């Protein structure tokens, strides 16, 4: 086996040194009847070319070659080759959590830079060294708010990513916390009057997403005012943080968290991704996850260490602020490299490209007779359209021209039948957008030519 460094004679010499006569003896404590008898039904052993061949075949049964207009919490952006080149430095990817700071300054300094970059983007004062993903970061933010306020009710906008809500629901239910979902209004934004009505003295936190699941920006300043009047915390979760290069950060929030996959992490069928959590400094001691702090060595040189570990499970056990142990260090490193490469001007330029492409696509689609863009609030690189015919048919038509046309919102919002969530990043060419528009027109024509038109009512 090519990964094992010891030869049979090494093994024999080591066995002799232990005073045992066979390796079996080390397994003596496993009762005979619990030991595995026959071989297992597993593939291999395979050589490298065989493994490559297996995965190449799997990779062929993929959407490679399609233009994807899918976003919804997983964004396809171009990743500069320098990101992968640096991530592949095995000093980074084969290291453990930097508990031994003197030989982990590389990871630690990069994490300190990551924390800085994320707070610069979100306008918050402190940030952690990453969490699993956007859904769990949102859940952790809520758990944090429950600890801070010692209240027990959480309001969540229906425009928060539905899967983030599902994860939150799985975890906070156990704490006896009441979760209330708040409706959206015609603009696609959180309904402010419902928020006012739902807020009460038991409310610990309000969770909104901006840009929200429909791609539109929430009025976080107005929301914050109402939330703070009732003594609750405002949590803003962000699934597409590239927006922060051109959108004013929600500095009036108490916690800003979310998903930073957009920054140099591949879409990779849903993971690994990169959760982040930033907050006002006064909540620092209640923050979950690892934190890297600056300090000095014995000679006064600057260095970095994991700090405030007394919040964490390996010290506090059942009294810890969270059960989290690993973070997403390597993904956070990818984001740090990515953001360093783009820098202040590159990130802004990239956000402008996304904005221009998405607005071009939205305008072209809305110009097709019968196609409606139902939500009027400002959006970044995602938007909702409603074709005047069955969305399934449209998506099938688009697939014929190698386009994945977006997410059918009916899946999460039964009332939004035939509504598509469309994302257009810098990776989508004008030609592909025009091809999409053509497919809409063709579908409209073919549907108009069939008798089924009346059968395809669209609900609002």
């Amino acid at each position: 086996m090519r990964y094992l460094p010891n030869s049979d004679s090494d093994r024999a010499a080591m066995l002799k040194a232990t005073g045992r006569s066979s390796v079996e003896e080390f397994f003596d404590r496993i009762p005979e009847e619990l030991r595995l008898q026959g071989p297992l039904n597993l593939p291999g052993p395979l050589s490298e070319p065989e493994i490559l061949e297996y995965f190449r075949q799997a990779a062929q049964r993929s959407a490679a070659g399609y233009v994807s207009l899918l976003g919804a919490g997983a964004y396809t952006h171009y990743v500069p080759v320098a990101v992968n080149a640096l991530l592949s430095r095995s000093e980074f990817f084969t290291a453990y959590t930097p508990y031994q700071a003197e030989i982990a300054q590389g990871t630690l300094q990069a994490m300190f830079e990551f924390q800085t970059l994320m707070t610069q983007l979100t306008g918050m004062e402190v940030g952690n060294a990453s969490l699993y993903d956007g859904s769990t970061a949102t859940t952790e933010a809520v758990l944090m708010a429950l600890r801070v306020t010692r209240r027990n009710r959480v309001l969540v906008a229906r425009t928060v990513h539905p899967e983030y809500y599902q994860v939150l629901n799985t975890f906070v239910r156990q704490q006896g916390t009441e979760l209330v979902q708040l409706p959206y209004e015609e603009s696609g934004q959180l309904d402010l009057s419902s928020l006012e009505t739902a807020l009460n003295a038991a409310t610990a936190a309000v969770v909104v997403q901006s840009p929200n699941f429909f791609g539109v920006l929430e009025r976080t300043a107005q929301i914050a005012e109402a939330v703070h009047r009732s003594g609750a915390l405002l949590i803003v979760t962000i699934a597409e943080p590239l927006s922060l290069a051109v959108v004013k950060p929600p500095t009036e929030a108490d916690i800003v968290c979310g998903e930073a996959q957009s920054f140099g992490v591949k879409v990779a069928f849903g993971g690994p991704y990169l959760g982040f959590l930033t907050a006002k400094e006064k909540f620092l001691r209640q923050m979950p996850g690892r934190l890297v702090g600056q300090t000095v060595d014995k000679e006064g040189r600057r260095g970095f260490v994991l700090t405030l570990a007394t919040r964490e499970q390996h010290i506090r056990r059942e009294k810890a602020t969270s059960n989290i142990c690993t973070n997403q260090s390597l993904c956070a490193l990818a984001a740090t490299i990515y953001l360093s490469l783009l820098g202040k001007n590159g990130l802004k330029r990239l956000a402008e490209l996304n904005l221009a492409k998405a607005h071009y696509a939205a305008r072209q689609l809305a110009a097709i007779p019968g196609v409606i863009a139902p939500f009027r609030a400002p959006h970044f690189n995602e938007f909702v359209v409603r074709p005047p015919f069955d969305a399934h048919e449209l998506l099938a038509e688009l697939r014929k021209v190698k386009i994945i046309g977006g997410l059918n919102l009916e899946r999460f919002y039964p009332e939004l039948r035939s509504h598509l969530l469309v994302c257009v990043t810098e990776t989508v060419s004008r030609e592909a957008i025009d091809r999409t528009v053509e497919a809409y027109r063709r579908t409209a024509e073919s549907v108009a030519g069939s008798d089924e038109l009346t059968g395809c009512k669209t609900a609002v």
Partner: protein
Amino acid sequence: MTLGRSLWPPCRNPPGLPEREIMENRIREARPHVNRNEKLIFERSTPGKSGVDFAPLDVPPVSPEEVLGPELSRSEVEGFPEVSELEVIRHFTRLSTWNYGVDTGLYPLGSCTMKYNPRINEEVARLEGLATDHPYAPEALVQGCLGVLHETARCLKEITGMDAITLQPAAGAQAELAGILMIRACLAERGDPRRHILIPDSAHGTNPASATIAGYEVRNIKSDECGCIDLANLEHAMTEDVAALMLTNPNTLGIFESKIREISDLVHARGGFMYMDGANMNALVGVARPADFGVDVMHLNLHKTFSTPHGGGGPGSGPVAVKNVLEPYLPLPIIEQAPDGGFGLNYDRPRSIGRVRAFYGNFGMAVRALAYIQANGFEGLRQTARDAVLNANYLNSSLTGLYELGSCCPPMHECVFSDRRQAARGVRTGDIAKRLIDYGFHPYTTAFPLIVPGALMIEPTESASKEELDAFIHALASIAQEVEEDPEFVLQAPHTTRVTRLDEAAAARRPVLRWKPSHQA
């Protein structure tokens, strides 16, 4: 030599210094070179630079102010770095040289299983298609990804003997939480909600933290000198109000729980569930299957047993495997294969605990784990477990006598010593660890498990060669001697790293968690 001296920067060495000190001072003087003093990326920044260029925009431009409105738009991200591509490459390459990884050398961090991370895993995880498919793409277009998940799940079921599995949890701690929630859901459905979870005091800290977040009260039970469950103790603690026993097997002392069957029988007889923390499953792959132990639910750490890289602290991946009794409660969705061979996601599972993470988990880690399983095959995996156990036992015998054993029971994949003897000279496990760095090794795990005072928890894994283990034994022997002769020298270690011991107390007292421009700092 003469020429070299004439070019050397002026030395401040007073006349008459011994040759050795002169040399040391010279070495120190050469240290200011930038590659040892890489600044923060923000401090390298100069306005107007960037590390990327963009193709010209092929659609009409829009102004953010116009489409977002002046009150919502932002003109710049203050303080963001502005550097060229080359500067980014140098910056992170230099930082990487300050790290120690498995590829650098022996990394015997107990409980963390720092085994070799095969390069082919990285290669296949980056293949276009696998690295680029969107989680919401139509199922018909992502059969490759779904197939990889399905095959990984099948292999892990085969290895553990369990009936069903989810790959969704992002890491071990999240897996624990998911597993405990499944138990909770099942008990709730039976109309038998229970309040407590039993956890031995030798367990990982995540166990009690996860049980608490799942809404249970933790009852710690004292383990015996092997870190194992005392049956009489369990008999007493296992009341009708206990939902589950969380057990790590082999335990954190590296010792197999030989009464595991009796333990599960007792837990089951009182209506509870057996949760096995599979953090140490690398000792058992191909040797024994937890399903046969009476385990109802367990998790695996793909980043420990199945060779996916730790990445400086993640991403991990924590599949949870269950017996049929808990299958209905698995997180949503589950992957199924239709009779025609196609793969699909099943969301129609009303008894599920719900989602524990968006999408389907850390897919990229499943890809790597499957490549590892394929490379090894059954025989390779079994040999891997045997080598890991042999390596640990070789260290255990070789270090006995130098350090006090943490337990008198023979270990499997890791061995634990106590610093009792060295502590008498004022040197603790953490100090010995720092001195090991000077010998070129990554330290072992310090001060865990808690049941061994001043623990040195050593897990060489199968990836350590005998040659490397001998050098490691030699280093620990030398340090034991140094502790006797010059404890202060050990207390000041490490002596050879870029920075010396860092002031952790100062970092916690006045936390500085981000860089600020000098006018704001």
